[in-house]
């Protein structure tokens, strides 16, 4: 099945670089070869910067022409034709007819001012020469096929009137309209909630079977791959690290990088004390994370989970509420209940995890506790002071003992400040340290503690990677010696391998400084790994809460069960669940 004859698409020695005006050539893909066989699904897996999306876009010639430089020896063979040398007219005949593509952001990928029907019909009339009526009928049929209710009525809807999942279904309907032989799916579920992701994955798998097409599935998430792919191509830094059947790859990964990728995701079942990181595998042997000094807690001494009676309660939140006013009607307003009352307790040195999909109110809850939104009700007692009450000077001082690490590492550091200025600022504002020398010393220690070299002090944020920036953000929080750290999707924007390093750092710091964490995330596996207690939120409401292990192993509420069931866990052929 893997002989070149039976393959639908072969990519050979693909080399792509980008040349911006006045800049040296940046190599994105450096010699990639793989095959896509007939009627099978190939997953192209890699972290950001691996060149996986560039490879996918180059197949249909969708890279911006003016800056793209493709090596003349590269080949993308489609039915004996090298697509890289095809004329525009030849390419247009293939695009949308033989090879279709769906993208990561369904909202922006659909034209906002045309109806769903118009956009579906365009491709049908172009490639199949259907009349307006025939195309209309076919479009409705396609919408039905991708599982959109009331397809005829939905034809007249504009993209923004559909939910994210439905938008992606429309994209898929557009892609399969001409029954293509190959569907390229470029991170099609990354922008979607986990329950929607599950539905879209099922749909793609189902369509692949029914339409006898091949699918090239591009993703950063190895766990998805186990569910959907027959073959896997693992990429890193523009090179293929490993190619193989999915069973082989999962059971006996050959490449160190693949092994590391498989290991560094927190498992959903069971709970390791530390996550393994890429360096553990690449450099062979389990060496400590680069630059991390300080005491590693004794392996195996996993502290008790959940609230145990001797725990010192640091933060006592009762029935906290938040409504937003939305203008409605003539002069009226409508109340949107973002948080409909949450109650929990946070003990010293422990972690409360908050999980939910987008719009569940989990981020609002974090901002309420930071005082960045004013609450509409309830109380939050932090060592006897209610954080929700109007400010007085001593509550202001209390507030500083709660710090937050945000999601987007690119927006959380002031781009005009050097790292030194960023870390110095809180020390100066609060007069920590007797003099400049003492402060400089403190800053150096902190920087080393979060695993960055001292030279970083004189650099600006744009010179650092996402993971390094999160380390700087964490160091900034540590300057004021917080007792509570709120992590709002703090690792969600990071690649899995970097995620593991930052999670390990957070764990180490918690043990060292006895901080309490409020860990907010949509990622159930990460929340489980970090948390002692868990709140599951949906549409502003806490639907289930309790001891982390109990909630995950014996979910009571239907929503929690649905969430857990939707998580891809790499099981396709009844293998044992992934994990260490």
């Amino acid at each position: 099945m893997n002989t070149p004859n039976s393959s639908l698409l072969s990519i050979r020695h693909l080399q792509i670089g980008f040349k911006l005006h006045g800049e040296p050539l940046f190599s994105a893909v450096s010699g990639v070869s793989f095959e896509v066989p007939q009627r099978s699904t190939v997953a192209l897996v890699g972290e950001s910067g691996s060149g996986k999306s560039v490879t996918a876009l180059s197949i249909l010639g969708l890279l911006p022409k003016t800056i793209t430089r493709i090596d003349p020896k590269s080949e993308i063979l489609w039915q004996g034709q090298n697509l890289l040398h095809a004329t525009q007219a030849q390419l247009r005949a293939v695009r949308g007819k033989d090879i279709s593509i769906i993208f990561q952001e369904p909202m922006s990928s659909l034209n906002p001012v045309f109806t769903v029907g118009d956009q579906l019909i365009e491709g049908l009339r172009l490639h199949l020469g259907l009349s307006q009526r025939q195309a209309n009928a076919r479009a409705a049929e396609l919408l039905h096929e991708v599982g959109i209710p009331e397809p005829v009525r939905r034809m007249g809807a504009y993209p923004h009137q559909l939910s994210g999942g439905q938008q992606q279904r429309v994209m898929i309907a557009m892609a399969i309209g001409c029954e293509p032989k190959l569907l390229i799916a470029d991170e099609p579920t990354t922008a979607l909630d986990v329950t929607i992701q599950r539905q879209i994955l099922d749909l793609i798998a189902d369509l692949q079977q029914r339409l006898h097409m091949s699918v090239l599935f591009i993703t950063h998430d190895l766990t998805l791959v186990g569910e959907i792919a027959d073959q896997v191509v693992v990429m890193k830094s523009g090179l293929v690290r490993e190619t193989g059947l999915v069973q082989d790859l999962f059971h006996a990964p050959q490449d160190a990088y693949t092994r590391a990728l498989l290991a560094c995701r927190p498992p959903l079942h069971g709970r390791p004390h530390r996550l393994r990181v890429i360096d553990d595998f690449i450099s062979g042997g389990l060496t400590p994370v680069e630059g991390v000094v300080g005491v590693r807690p004794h392996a195996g001494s996993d502290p008790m989970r959940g609230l145990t009676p001797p725990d010192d309660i640091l933060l006592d939140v009762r029935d906290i509420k938040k409504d937003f006013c939305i203008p409605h009607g003539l002069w009226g307003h409508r109340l949107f209940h973002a948080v409909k009352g949450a109650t929990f307790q946070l003990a010293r040195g422990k972690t409360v995890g908050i999980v939910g999909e987008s719009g569940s109110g989990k981020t609002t809850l974090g901002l309420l506790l930071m005082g960045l939104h004013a609450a509409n009700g309830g109380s939050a007692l932090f060592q006897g002071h209610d954080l929700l009450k109007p400010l007085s000077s001593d509550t202001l001082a209390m507030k500083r003992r709660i710090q937050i690490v945000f999601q987007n590492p690119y927006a959380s550091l002031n781009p005009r400040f050097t790292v030194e200025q960023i870390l110095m600022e809180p020390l100066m504002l609060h007069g920590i340290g007797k003099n400049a020398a003492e402060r400089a010393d403190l800053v150096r220690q902190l920087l080393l503690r979060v695993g960055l070299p001292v030279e970083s002090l004189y650099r600006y944020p744009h010179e650092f990677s996402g993971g390094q920036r999160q380390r700087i953000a964490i160091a900034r929080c540590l300057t004021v010696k917080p007792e509570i750290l709120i992590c709002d999707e703090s690792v969600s924007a990071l690649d899995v391998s970097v995620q593991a390093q930052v999670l390990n750092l957070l764990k180490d710091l918690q043990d060292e400084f006895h901080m309490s964490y409020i860990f907010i995330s949509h990622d159930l596996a990460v929340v489980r790994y970090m948390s002692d207690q868990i709140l599951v939120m949906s549409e502003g409401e806490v639907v289930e809460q309790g001891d982390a292990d109990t909630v995950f192993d014996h979910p009571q509420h239907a929503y929690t069960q649905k969430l857990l069931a939707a998580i891809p866990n790499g099981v396709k052929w009844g293998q044992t669940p992934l994990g260490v």
Partner: protein
Amino acid sequence: MIAYLMRRIWQMIPTLLGVVLLVFFLFNWVGGDPAYVLAGKMASPEDIANIRHQLGIDRPLWEQLWIFIRQIVSGDFGDSWSTHEPVSQIFRTRLGPSMTLLIPLMILETAVAVLIALLVSAFRGSLLDRSLMVASTMVMSISLLVYIIVGQYVFASVLGWFPVKGWSQQLSQNLTTYAVLPVLLGLLVSVAPSLRLYRTFILDEVGQDYVRTARAKGVSEMRILWVHVLRNAGIPIVTNLLMGLPALLTGAFLLERFFAIPGIGREIILAVERSDFPIIKAATVYVAMATLVANLLGDMLYRVLDPRVNLD
């Protein structure tokens, strides 16, 4: 839709009040005493007192403000100080010539600018694009004054292709003879900024993900540009055009002055030269009202054209 309209009209009231206050403040407080201007150099104190009484500026400020508001609501600003023609009649008769000049100018400008912008954005970053942009910068940099002075001299005085100045009673004659040179000269200056603006609108859209989707469907580049992109970029272009109308009304004063076209812009210049306050006050307030209405209409149009905007 109705609710939104009502809310917007309601919100216009404070702005309008602000404009009235600003104009009142300017003319009745900053400006000093207009009686000295009116009475001329050889006026006796009695003359001045007399004029002050006629103008009502010997009364308390709040009473003057009340008179001003009554004038605005009734549309009766009295007579011009210099020609003693009723102000309302001046505006009625000057609107026609202004429109005869401005409507062709606007249509031509938009058509030319959109066409070139589409052409240029198809070749973004190419030599054509860059040289056209540099050329438009240079064309924009020469003052309209220079274009008019040179244009009038060369094409009207020396070559005699067009009349030097003048205006007739007939629309057709105005359009075919008198308005041609002013419109062409106006076009020279106004196309370049519109072109640059529309180019950014179009380039914004060309970079969007949906263009990539259309390309991936096998749609031709021409269709992508004319159907997918223009339908999106057209929304800000159309609304921008509508909102710019009132400013245009006064913006053509140089053309009107040089070519002796009896329009509103020229009337305002004359009024400023003669310190003819009633005309300036009326022009300021009414053009401000027109601007607010045009903004409202532009906003409504935007909401009609763009399906994403919620109508309630």
